[in-house]
């Protein structure tokens, strides 16, 4: 069971934040707890594996793409971080206000309102010739008696004065109306200005549309840039693909080399087998040769034995004849038989020589065949193996040479055997001659005794 405290210690150790005391504590506890120790080992290995993953470079155009896209985004709000000055705030507010789309219309509205205020203040209330007065304090109430007949007297001066006043008033009103007219004209000019402003506004709207089109064009441009970036990415991917293909080709070549190496090894093993078989064949051939030599020796021995028996028979016949014939005749016959025997022996020696020559010829032919096979093998080796394998070829050739030397030694042995055989034959001849001389001596003694 791994407790939470050990887990905490393991985590700290893995993350490199454990103190020396904590490290010692962890070591001590891990010694006692095998499960925790195994957990720690595996987690450490996992950490090492994660650390083995190297950071990768981002695509080459990523940074440029980000910067380009940032240029199209709205600017960062800056007001919040600017120092607070009321003038600047007012100016900025006013500038912001002016920057609004409807600033022209608003200005027109302000001018119109100001004009109306001025107009109303002048026209209303209607002005009279008498000055208007305010009353302060208590109101003085006027109380008059009921009007009488005599009170009503027509005063022509006053009436005429009143008419003048009226005419004055009319003139004033005419002037006022003129003023109003001029103001109306001013208003019409303001209206025309307003209209002009509206036209400007329309133009501004048109400009805005153009601006939006330009923005759209910019967006298109950005998309085309993004497409070019994508294209460049594709190109980069293609480059990567090409590299991957190159790596694959390298891998294939490596695999091909490996397969070639395997084939070469197979060929080498086959060659080794062939060489072993050839060794076996050579040994069997050598054995066969020895066997043939032994057989030949045996046949020679049997022939010698036959000749010996024939000789014995001849000797027996001659002994029988010698009994009947004269010693001279017998002697002549013996001489003749001896000459015949010599001839036969000569023939046998010639035969032996021919046989030995034939065996030597066979051996030389075999050696030639071996040499040819060795040459073929060396050619095969040259084809299959490279420079390094030339050494092995030379070794093989030396082996072949050794074998050829062995064969020559065998040949020498066989020649020495043949020489020994000849010597034995010569010894036998000498023995025969000695026997013959002894028999002749015996016969001559017998003849002498008989005589």
């Amino acid at each position, binding site marked *: 069971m791994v407790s939470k405290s050990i887990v905490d210690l393991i985590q700290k150790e893995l993350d490199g934040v454990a103190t020396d005391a904590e490290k010692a504590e962890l070591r001590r506890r891990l010694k006692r707890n095998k499960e925790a120790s195994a957990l720690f080992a595996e987690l450490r290995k996992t950490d090492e594996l994660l650390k083995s993953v190297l950071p990768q470079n*981002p695509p080459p155009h990523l940074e440029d793409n980000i910067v380009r896209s*940032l240029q199209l985004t709205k600017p960062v709000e800056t007001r919040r971080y600017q120092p607070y000055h009321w003038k600047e705030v007012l100016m900025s507010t006013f500038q912001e206000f002016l920057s609004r789309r409807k600033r022209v219309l608003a200005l027109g509205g302000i001018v119109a309102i100001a004009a109306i205020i001025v107009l109303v203040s002048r026209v209303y209330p209607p002005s009279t010739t008498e000055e208007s007065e305010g009353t302060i304090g208590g109101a003085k109430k006027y109380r008059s008696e009921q009007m009488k007949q005599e009170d009503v007297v027509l005063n022509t001066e006053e009436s005429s004065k009143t008419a003048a006043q009226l005419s004055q008033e009319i003139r004033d009103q005419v002037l006022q109306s003129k003023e109003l007219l001029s103001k109306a004209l001013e208003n019409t000019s303001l209206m025309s200005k307003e209209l002009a402003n509206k036209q400007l506004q329309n133009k501004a709207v048109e400009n805005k549309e153009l601006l939006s089109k330009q923005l759209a064009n910019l967006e298109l441009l950005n998309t085309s840039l993004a497409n070019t970036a994508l294209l460049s990415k594709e190109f980069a991917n293609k480059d990567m693909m090409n590299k991957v293909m190159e790596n694959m080709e390298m891998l294939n070549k490596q695999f091909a080399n490996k397969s070639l190496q395997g084939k070469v090894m197979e060929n080498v093993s086959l060659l080794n087998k062939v060489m072993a078989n050839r060794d076996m064949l050579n040994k069997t051939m050598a054995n066969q040769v020895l066997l043939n030599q032994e057989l030949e020796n045996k046949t020679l021995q049997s022939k010698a034995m036959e000749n010996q028996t024939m000789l014995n028979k001849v000797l027996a016949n001659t002994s029988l004849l010698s009994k009947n014939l004269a010693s001279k005749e017998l002697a002549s016959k013996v001489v003749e038989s001896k000459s015949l025997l010599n001839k036969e022996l000569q023939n046998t020696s010639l035969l032996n020589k021919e046989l030995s020559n034939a065996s030597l010829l066979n051996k030389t032919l075999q050696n030639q065949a071996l040499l040819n096979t060795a040459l073929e093998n060396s050619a095969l080796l040259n084809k299959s193996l490279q420079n390094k394998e030339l050494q092995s070829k030379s070794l093989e050739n030396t082996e072949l040479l050794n074998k050829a030397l062995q064969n020559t030694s065998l040949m020498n042995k066989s020649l020495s055997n043949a020489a020994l055989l000849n010597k034995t034959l010569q010894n036998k001849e000498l023995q025969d001659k000695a026997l013959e001389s002894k028999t002749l001596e015996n016969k001559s003694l017998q003849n002498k005794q008989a005589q």
Partner: protein
Amino acid sequence: MVEQEDSILVRQCLEGDRAKFGKLVKKYTKPIYNLALRMVGDGENAADVAQTTFIKAFENLDKFDLNLKFFSWLYRIAINESLNFIQKQKSTDQLDEEIPSVDGSPDEQVQRRERTEMIQQAVLTLTPEQRSVVVLRHFMDLSYTQMSATLGITEARVKSRLFSARQHLRKLLVKRGL
């Protein structure tokens, strides 16, 4: 020191010098790409996630608290973007990784490539939460505190997730003969 440099660059960017963000992009492109690669397991998608991460960071730079560490904030965005991508994809069995060319014989390279692929596949079998801590710990080399700040969870939770992820990986890698 590095964090101070980041803060200075962020401040300059917030004051209107947009070019300074380019320096941050240059500095963090590789780590963010690698983080995304280990999270989503695919080179092309990792590049997309990295791009989105930087765009979001730029758009929300005024919301960044200058008292915090920029890389933690950026890694958090990258982790969130990766998790969003994983949720959208819902298939993590695809692995088209571009293995970098490393030194060694062709046989060693092939072996290393196969081993990296097996490890990446094992990482992809983790839950997104476990994968986040493993990627931040092992591939981004973040401490417990930094991981806690990045993921917005307690250090105890970080340790718990990391241990369970390690155990899962251990079993899987042992089973695969690594």
